[in-house]
């Protein structure tokens, strides 16, 4: 705009020059805009894009053997998988195993190999201890005999096949394992043994709990927000403080409070027993019921606030007009008022749903074994067993599922809004 104005205000200049000036001004404006956005973009890249990219990569990362034992990995990649690998590979393996202690390489490969079979860690440790001294080995050392003497397992094809599976630099084992799948010995994808099937049901329950909490929050939050938006300012401010009050209390305190209220000898059970409504205490906590109670309580404000802000902006005259034109009050509410709140409903539900997906403090404390969500296992693999491959695979799948759901949801809401307009 300003560029246009300056251009028209200097009519003395010829037309070609004007174009160049315009372009220059446009470019300057673009640079300014980029400069203003740059800090935020940089922040987003450093704090979100890089760690998320890193996590996605870790879910397929299989570079442990390749980085610690490059020659062995190379040799095994060319091995046809019958008999034993050639002497050169075995010699490289022995030399690289000896050096692997430096910089923690041994730890990394034994952890990785243990995912293939849990005996590798002790096998590698024993072998390392039993290796002949550096000056006792030469080019004519018979490595098959030497290694087999330390541990007969080295004479078995199966042992080397296990190591060969870790030689490629990427793997799908973590992603498959997160879907209760595995590769059989001949490379076919198959389901894991029934007793070990876990993660599909974990994903399912994560979605069920997050969805359930969202629906309950909507059912409770909508009337509340409506009340807040329609009451006189003085009363609604008072109520608003009550809605916000839980925000000022620690999440853990609120969770612990629910345990105290809901446990077998807790306040709720005792009152119910006292009034004679029940004969024996109900199991209200350390199961799904407790999870819903605690999570809905914690997440309800995130539903009420966006709803309230949208409802506050809706003029009551629309509904009045509908009623005065002969609509039933409910029809006026449902067909005139509710569609105007869609953007608030959309914001509130997506906020609550996505926050609920990542919950695990609350389910860990008030849930039972069947209520633990994906993030519980992500934390377990990250902090307890240090299996970042599994943690990343579970996290990546959760991310993908969330994005897919978001896309579907986005389209649905947009269509609703289109219909309305």
């Amino acid at each position, binding site marked *: 705009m300003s560029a246009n104005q300056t251009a028209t205000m200097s009519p003395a200049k010829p037309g070609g020059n004007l174009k160049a000036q315009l372009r220059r001004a446009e470019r300057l404006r673009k640079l300014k805009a980029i400069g203003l956005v740059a800090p935020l973009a940089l922040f987003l890249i*450093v*704090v*979100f894009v*890089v*760690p*998320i990219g*890193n*996590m996605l990569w870790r879910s397929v990362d299989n570079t442990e053997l390749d980085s610690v034992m490059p020659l062995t990995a190379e040799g095994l990649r060319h091995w046809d998988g019958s008999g034993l690998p050639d002497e050169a590979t075995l010699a490289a393996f022995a030399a690289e195993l000896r050096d692997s*202690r*430096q*910089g*923690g*390489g*041994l*730890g*990394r490969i*034994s*952890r990785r190999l*243990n*995912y293939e079979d*849990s*005996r590798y*860690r*002790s096998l590698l440790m024993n072998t390392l201890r039993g290796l002949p001294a550096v000056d006792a080995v030469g080019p004519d050392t018979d490595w098959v005999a030497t290694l087999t003497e330390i541990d007969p397992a080295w004479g078995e094809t199966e042992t080397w096949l296990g190591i060969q599976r870790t030689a490629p630099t990427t793997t799908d084992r973590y992603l498959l394992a997160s879907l209760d799948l595995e590769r059989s010995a001949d490379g076919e994808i198959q389901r894991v043994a029934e*007793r*070990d*099937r*876990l993660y599909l*049901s*974990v994903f399912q329950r994560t979605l069920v709990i997050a969805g359930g909490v969202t629906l309950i929050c909507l059912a409770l939050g909508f009337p509340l927000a409506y009340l807040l938006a329609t009451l006189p300012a003085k009363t609604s401010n008072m109520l608003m403080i009550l809605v916000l009050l839980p925000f000022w209390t620690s999440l*853990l305190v609120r969770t612990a409070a629910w345990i105290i209220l809901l*446990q*077998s*000898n807790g306040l709720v059970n005792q009152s119910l027993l006292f009034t004679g409504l029940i004969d024996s205490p109900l199991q209200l906590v*350390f199961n799904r019921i407790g999870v819903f109670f605690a999570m809905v309580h914690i997440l309800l404000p995130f539903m009420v606030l966006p709803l309230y802000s949208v409802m506050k902006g809706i003029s009551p005259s629309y509904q009045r007009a509908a009623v005065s034109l002969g609509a039933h009050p409910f029809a006026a509410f449902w067909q005139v008022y509710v569609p105007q709140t869609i953007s608030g409903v959309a914001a509130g539900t997506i906020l609550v749903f996505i926050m609920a997906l990542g919950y*695990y*403090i609350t389910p*860990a*404390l008030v849930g*039972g*074994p*069947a209520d*633990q969500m994906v993030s519980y*296992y*992500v*934390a*377990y*693999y*990250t*902090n*307890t*067993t*240090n*299996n970042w491959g*599994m943690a990343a695979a579970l*996290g990546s799948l959760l991310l993908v599922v969330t994005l897919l759901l978001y896309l579907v949801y986005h389209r649905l809401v947009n269509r609703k809004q289109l219909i309305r307009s």
Partner: protein
Amino acid sequence: MTQQRFPLSRISRGIALGGLVSLGLAVSASAQALTVISFGGASGEAMQNAYYGPFSEETGIRLTPGDYNGELSRIRAMVETGNVSWDLVEMESPELVRGCFEGLFEPIDWQRLGLGSVLIDAAFDECGVGTFVWSTVLAYNADALDGAPTSWADFWDVEQFPGTRGLRRGAKYTLEFALMADGVAADEVYDVLRTDEGVDRAFAKLDEIKDHIQWWEAGAQPPQWLVSGDVAMTSAYNGRIAAAQEEGSNLEIVWNESIYDLDYWAIVAGSEHVDEAYAFIEFASQPETQAAYSSQIPYGPVHPEAIAQLDEAQARRMPTYEENMVGALAIDTGFWVDHGEELEQRFSAWAAR
């Protein structure tokens, strides 16, 4: 140690850590002082009184204490980025074993340490020096139970001792207890558990009382459940039960068939204060300092002479008290490091069914 504290800060730190680990979350510390990181809480206070303060006074070495929640990931991030600001860290045994393999800790030079072989056997580790012993025990509320259970077989006996049972939500400990309840002798538990049939046997035994179990997550829960009457008996950490006993609850511990474990001092690889760290470990492993620590918190000293310096009532609460060691089982950390993930996964699948 983690188990003794509400593990929530661990969880919330886990959240903070999740994405940010690559940025290197090193806590800045003074370049000159020896930085000693413990699990904090009541144990950290006892360490301050028994070890940190007297050590600085005696040697003149400045010491910066700190605490964390046992995440190996933080140490790993530190060592991998070469930004090592922690020198000496209190480690639980599985993390110690894992970290040792990964080269996150300096191997212990026992000659340099000058402790000889006075400590209990389990205190000697490739990368760590044991500092105290804690136990996972069977505990019950003596006011609420007719008769006294003496073993895990009694724990499984819901006819004679009716009521809900508490167990830690996880395979570790649970499978060992199940096997002992099924008649496996304490010293054969891990031999049996190393076989597929043994694992099946443990899960089959757990099936028997599955409907009676309420699973706990935080170490604070079992004593609270016992006091409130939510459970009739439960597995629990001995330190937690001792704390509840001091508050006047009539809780009892069955030491028979308990499982004990140690916390260790480990020196972070790349630490610039290795000499001071060795001096500290040696100082903290003397009978006097060990007794000073254990007199404040019921974790057993690793120096056998320390027990004699405690009064009888205190000594009886120690996992390393001679009578309490009878029938007790040392946790097989190597077993859980090798098989932990598959067993925990199977446990989670089993428990959710």
